[in-house]
């Protein structure tokens, strides 16, 4: 590594900085865009993946004509008898459409014997238990977004659900989820099972789906085959499927984003090519002088390569630094809606500050070679300038 050449390159960089600035700016903006998009998607993916292992191992749903229908409850007992399954219980849950705000609440039925829930989930549910003890009217625990809507539209401590037959069902708000789990529970309402059955008028012997807990991960596929064999009309969704689909969808989205960006990479290549090959007369004269005093073509290629390396490393780290700051400290103000879509309930959440080195190396391997490749031919063309013509 000839540091004298590095020194010469740095000085020549300083000399024609204005021309180089445009190249650095283009490169930095491209890296900034790439790193911020990939960081947002990887932090949302991380958000999903951390909660995936608390999902049930298997979910059994009865299908007819491609649509999900209610599943008989006694199937849960048969499934529970399969070796390897430690328990299988039915669940009653559904959506409640609230016209005024055009929002769907997810209403989930739980058998609320309070003691088990109180100590198990107290830190994620703020309960005001006096309401529950005194009255036997239906109560609910709602997500943050739901509570806000009720405050602004209806009444801070109760809400009248409209049942299938048009009658009202007054339900007191007995508690709400904590802020940290907003992203997962922003639109969820927990109610005792019999109230949910009453609201969606589901008979006692039917349920929405059946959750199967299989402690040993190796067993999951075997249990899945057995259930499939027992009930051919059921669809089984395993946790591993959901995890693979999380992975798929983010790869699909970032892959789509990348392939749309290929046009930008071609433009980037052409821009860099044209910027580096536009040698002013002054530059040509300088290279002519260098060759006249004894520099070889390789030396000139060397300084061009050093210059390229310095510019690309500088722009890459500058772009990455800005992007990480933009995404994790400023919480990516504009770019974030691209990912989170339109939701009236506006779950305020912070992007998990997870910096994935694999993503950074992916972007490095994408942008730097394109830049260096774009400068190969211009630097060669500059290096073979005939010193003689330039002299006179």
């Amino acid at each position, binding site marked *: 590594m*000839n*540091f*004298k*050449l590095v*020194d*010469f390159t740095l*000085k020549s960089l300083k*000399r024609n900085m204005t021309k180089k600035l445009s190249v650095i700016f283009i490169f930095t903006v491209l890296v900034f865009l790439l790193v911020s998009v990939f960081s947002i998607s990887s932090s949302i993916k991380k958000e999903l993946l951390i909660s995936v292992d608390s999902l049930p191992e298997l979910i059994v749903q009865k299908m007819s004509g491609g649509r999900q229908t209610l599943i008989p409850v006694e199937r849960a007992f048969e499934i529970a008898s399969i070796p390897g399954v430690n328990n299988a219980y039915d669940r009653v849950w559904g959506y409640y459409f609230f016209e005024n705000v055009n929002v769907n609440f997810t209403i989930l039925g739980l058998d609320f014997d309070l003691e088990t829930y109180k100590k198990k989930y107290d830190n994620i549910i703020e309960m005001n238990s006096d309401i529950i003890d005194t009255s036997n009217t239906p109560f609910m625990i709602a997500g943050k977004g739901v509570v806000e809507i009720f405050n602004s539209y209806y009444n801070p401590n109760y809400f009248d659900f409209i049942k299938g037959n048009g009658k009202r069902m007054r339900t007191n708000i007995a508690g709400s989820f904590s802020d940290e789990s907003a992203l997962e529970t922003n639109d969820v309402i927990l109610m005792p099972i019999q109230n949910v059955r009453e609201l969606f008028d589901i008979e006692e012997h039917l349920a929405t789906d059946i959750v199967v807990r299989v402690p040993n991960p190796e067993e999951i596929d075997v249990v899945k085959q057995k259930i499939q064999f027992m009930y051919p009309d059921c669809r089984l969704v395993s946790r591993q499927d959901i995890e693979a689909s999380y992975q798929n969808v983010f790869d699909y989205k970032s892959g789509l984003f990348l392939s749309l960006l290929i046009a930008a990479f071609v433009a980037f290549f052409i821009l860099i090519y044209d910027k580096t090959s536009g040698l002013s007369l002054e530059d040509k*004269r*300088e290279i*002519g*002088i*260098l*060759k*006249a*005093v*004894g*520099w*070889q*073509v*390789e*030396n000139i290629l060397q300084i061009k390569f050093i210059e390229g390396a310095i510019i690309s490393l500088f722009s890459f780290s500058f772009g990455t630094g800005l992007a990480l700051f933009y995404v994790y400290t400023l919480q990516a103000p504009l770019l974030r809606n691209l990912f989170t879509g339109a939701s009236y309930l506006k779950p305020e959440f912070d992007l998990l500050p997870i910096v994935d080195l694999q993503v950074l190396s992916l972007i490095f391997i994408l942008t730097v070679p394109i830049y260096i490749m774009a400068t190969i031919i211009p630097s060669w063309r500059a290096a073979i300038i*005939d*010193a*003689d013509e330039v*002299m*006179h």
Partner: protein
Amino acid sequence: MIKLESIYKNYNIGEHNESEVLKNISFLVKENDFTILRGPSGSGKSTILSIIGGLIKPTKGEVFVDGKSIAKLPDKFASLVRQEKIGFIFQKFNLIHELNTIDNITIPLLPGKLSRLEIEKRAEEILDDLSILNKKNVLVKKLSGGEQQRVAIARALINRPKIILADEPTANLDKKLSLSFIQIIKELKQKGITILLASHDPLFSELKCVDNFIDIQHGEIK
């Protein structure tokens, strides 16, 4: 030291505007000789110097510099010869104006193995000889004509060349500066450096210390 054997040089061979610049040029410059190539401008003097310096290749003929044939050398090795053995002084000095004096002078040795400190020490000695050491860190574009000329000479001397090739060095210098230039050339001759100078300046004709005159007319030796 420098030997040319029937050198021919035509430009854009095979095209309609093919021009024969040099025809059958042969001459010898012995060690430590001070030779003047005389002839009107455009008579091919600078082409001869470029061929000797390895900047361009002759169409036909042989060139020997310090006993080594450089006509057929690939550009990489021609540049090496230029770097080790030859110092070039150009008519328009050809300095990099945005760099200061010391940077301009040290350029030829940058690709070499010497460390920066040694190079700078050597440069300071030469600047001292040429008495412009005080302008060491001044940007070249701020220097006067005479000073720029001395910086050009210093750059040519930095690699301790055996041969100095000067192409119309006094073309845009006034009389006083030309005389001081001749004074410097004389000192170089004492130091044992072979000098080949191309110029149509009559000032050189009456010089006593010149060993040999070669007259070039339309690309031929008269």
